[in-house]
Every structure is written in C-alpha cells, then in structure tokens.
C-alpha cells in the first residue's frame, strides 16, 4: 500500500471545508483498504468520516433515515427496519460476514467498487481502472458479470446487496458538497451506466459525500423480502439476487416492486415485470407469467449466460415466497 496522510476533521462542515482534490473519504475502510493494498486506487490523503456525526438511524414523518455512517450490522438489527422495511434487513444479513457488517457502513456499501477480477488486479487492462486500456472481461472470465446495462466498454456488475433493496423501495440520497450545500437525489439517478465512460460510476461531484439515505414507507415495503443465490451458502457475492415488495389487498396486487442484484451494471429495476403484476390476482400463474419476462433485454457475454434463466427463477421464487 502506498503512503498517504490521514486527517480526522469534525462534523460535515469540517470534513467538506478540509477537502481538496486527490482526497478520498474513509468510512469502515473494508473496501477502500482492499483496493489500496492492491494499488487499484492510491489516494494521497484520506479523510476519516468517523467524527462526521452521521451514525443515526431514525424515523422522520414515517420515512426511514439512515445516516451514511450507520453500520451494516446496526441497520440490519434495527427493530423499525425489520418491521417496516424487512428487505433492507435481509439484504444486509445476507451480505459479507458478521465482522465486515460491524465495520462496513451504509455510504461505503453504496459505493463499493465492482468485484470484476480484472478491475481488482493491476496486472490487467481495464477500462474502468485505466480508461481506454480495454476490457479483457468481454472475451475472458465473465461468468459473474452483467447481463443488464453493460456496454462494449465494460460489463461489470455493482456488487452490493443493500442498494438493490433501496432501489426497489425508491430510496433517495442526501448529498453534501464543498461550497454548494446539500441536494437530494433518487438512488435511481445516482448510479451511471458504463457507456463509453465506465470509470464514471455515480453522479457524485468532486468532494461530494453521502450524508443520509431516505426510504419511504408503504404496504409494499412492509411486505418485502430479499432472495440471494450464490455459489456457496454464505459469505459470497450474489450470482443473482432479487428484492421484491408486494402490496396485496383482497387478493389483488395493488403495487409491486422488483430490483435485481448481481446481474446489472447498477442495481436493476424491472418496471415491465412490475407492470405485469399490478392489478392482477396474487396467484402462481400470474407470478409465473410475470417472472418469465424477468430476463427480457438481457445480453450474455458467454460464461454468464446461465444468469438469464437464473434471474427468471429467482424472481419467481421471491414472488411466491413474499405472497405466501
């Protein structure tokens, strides 16, 4: 790991006013330090977010507010989260390991970099790490990579589970930048598809930080769950995962939310499958018809072809389980 300086300012104002180009924020450090050890990134200075005062989990007018520095373990265990937004708790409990969840934070999880093996090994070219150098994954080991949202420049997936749940729930992010105050942005507009600039991953401006995540409540949120399919039973990234929320009354689906993990360049919503469910009866044949369309638009790079059928089956299992 290259040398760097570490500064520990107090409060959001202190953090933002101390920021200068070349700095990186460190929260739990669980992703950043892996990348620094492998020289994938080499910031000159780290700004420690520990004293940012952004650790709280609270309810504001019925909406859930997650401070960016709340740990994955704290959010997963929170009683209101478990009752009103169970898909969030489940997505987190199926993430990483207990030790990582005690360290990793909400903000850091949303900004975890891709697990594409070429990206994380500086011995290889990679358009995301070194723009214009090429993408060895297109013809190489792409078994774990994206079937939705990729481009001829990059087919990396976003690896985190929490933002899949948050995407299904229409979460919004509060962002704060040096000199320009705060703004609120839907999570759906936060992530950027790779196109021909795969190194630009989010809408974050220079020096801008995530301060807070806001999640609205609703019957679809209360009746929600997370299904994660992986190579081993525990402590592994998703091959395919599905966050689903269904609002059902009198046997009729009033609202449906579905987002996928492990398959998209960003957490991937399925609006056409949701539309196929709304207004229909909550029964197996409706679920089967809707889930059959979950792979529509998918593009395989070769070794990841199995994910298309696995996506349909994962969505079907999630729908049947949440309606049971």
């Amino acid at each position: 790991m290259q040398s760097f300086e570490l500064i520990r300012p107090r409060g959001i104002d202190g953090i933002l006013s101390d920021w200068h180009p070349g700095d990186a924020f460190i929260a739990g450090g669980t992703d950043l330090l892996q990348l620094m050890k492998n020289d994938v990134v080499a910031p000159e200075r780290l700004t420690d977010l520990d004293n940012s005062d952004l650790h709280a989990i609270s309810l504001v007018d019925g909406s859930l507010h997650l401070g960016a520095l709340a740990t994955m373990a704290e959010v997963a265990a929170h009683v209101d989260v478990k009752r009103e937004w169970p898909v969030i708790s489940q997505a987190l409990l199926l993430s990483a390991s207990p030790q990582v969840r005690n360290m990793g934070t909400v903000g850091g999880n949303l900004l975890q970099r891709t697990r594409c093996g070429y990206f994380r090994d500086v011995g290889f070219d990679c358009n995301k790490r070194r723009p214009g150098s090429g993408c060895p994954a297109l013809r190489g080991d792409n078994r774990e990579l994206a079937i939705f949202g990729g481009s001829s420049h990059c087919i990396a997936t976003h690896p985190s589970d929490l933002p899949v749940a948050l995407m299904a729930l229409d979460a919004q992010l509060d962002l704060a930048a040096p000199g320009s105050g705060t703004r609120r942005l839907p999570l759906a507009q936060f992530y950027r598809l790779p196109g021909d600039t795969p190194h630009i991953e989010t809408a974050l401006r220079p020096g801008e930080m995530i301060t807070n995540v806001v999640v609205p409540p609703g019957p679809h949120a209360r009746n929600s769950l997370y299904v994660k399919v992986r190579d081993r039973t525990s402590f592994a990234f998703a091959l395919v995962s599905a966050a689903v929320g269904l609002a059902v009354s009198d046997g009729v689906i009033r609202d449906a939310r579905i987002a996928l993990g492990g398959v998209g360049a960003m957490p991937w919503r399925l609006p056409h499958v949701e539309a196929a469910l709304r207004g229909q009866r909550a029964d197996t044949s409706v679920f089967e018809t809707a889930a059959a369309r979950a792979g529509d638009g998918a593009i395989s790079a070769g070794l990841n072809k199995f994910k298309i059928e696995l996506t349909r089956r994962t969505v079907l299992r999630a729908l049947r389980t949440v309606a049971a």
Partner: protein
Amino acid sequence: METSNPTRRAVLGTAAALTAFSTAASRAARSEQPPASVSPPSQALIRVNGKQLTLELEPRTTLLDALREQTDLHGTKKGCDQGACGACTVHIDGKRVLSCLTLAVRCVGKEITTIEGLADGDTLHPMQAAFLAHDGMQCGYCTPGQIMSAVALVKEGHTQSDAEIAEWMSGNICRCGAYPNIVAAIREVVGPDGKRG
C-alpha cells in the same frame, strides 16, 4: 518482532510475499510506482487487552501488522489480508472486526481485545477450553480468529440452532474443515437451549 521502523522496501516485500492471489504482473507494477506522499511514522498509544502500548504507526499500518510486527501478541493471524478469511478477527470496543482492514491509527482511544486477552491468568476462557475439549482445530492457524468470533457470537445471541451458529460463524474460514467440531465447542458453551452466554 520484525522491525519497529520498516522501510518502504521492507513493507512492500512483506506485502507481496503475503498476498496470496497477486500475479507476477501486478507485483512488477507495484514496485515501479513511487510513493505518492510520505507520512513519517509517529508514536501512538493503543490500548490492547487492558494495557497501553506505544507503537510506531504510519497511517497505512494496519492493526494486524502493528500487532504482529511491533508487539509480542502474535496470536492474531494473517490469512488473506483482504477481509475474506477471518483469521485476523479481534474485538474493538467489544465488537468482532477484521484487524487486516483496520488502520491502527484509527484505534487510538478504543479498547482492543486479542486472543491473548481472553484467558484469566492461567485459566482459559470457557470458549478456549471448549475448543480444546472438542478438537475444534487441526493445524490451528484459523483458531484464534474462530475463538474471537465465537466469543462475540455468544454475546450477540445467534446460537439458537447449529444452522444459526454456522451462518454467524461464516466469516471464519477453516482450510482444515474443523467446522463440525467448532460448532460442537460453541454448542457446549451456550448449552442445549442456546441461551447461555
């Protein structure tokens, strides 16, 4: 104790030798890069197992390397150095965390417990005794991390069934496959109703 003031070359050498999955190409790329900035090591007081230790820390020194290279507390093990194996598990302020992904300078003012801090004099912690009784190890390399995780697990209360124990121990990998005996050891400590601890 290897050296209290390692040179950059020595640090890189150690890191390269211990990074299990790095390729020859990435090692070459690593040594070509000049340091982006140099922060001299400075002295810091870190509280480990109830004692204040004075350590020479650069910002980049991990808690794992600080313990293993600057103290005689060698029980905490380095497996992957990437968060994936759990061999380096310690407790910070009572919570189980990975010392390989923790910067030591961020631990000032916190309470660290390592495997050496569990026993009470010559009396083993009940979890250590149970691992011995149930042969919860073969080569023993993962064992300090397993025991630190197991002690935290009991406190957290995720012990209602063997399946729940296995899930909440899944951050600790054992190449020797001692898993059934590890679960048996934890089961003994929590008792049949899964509630003690």
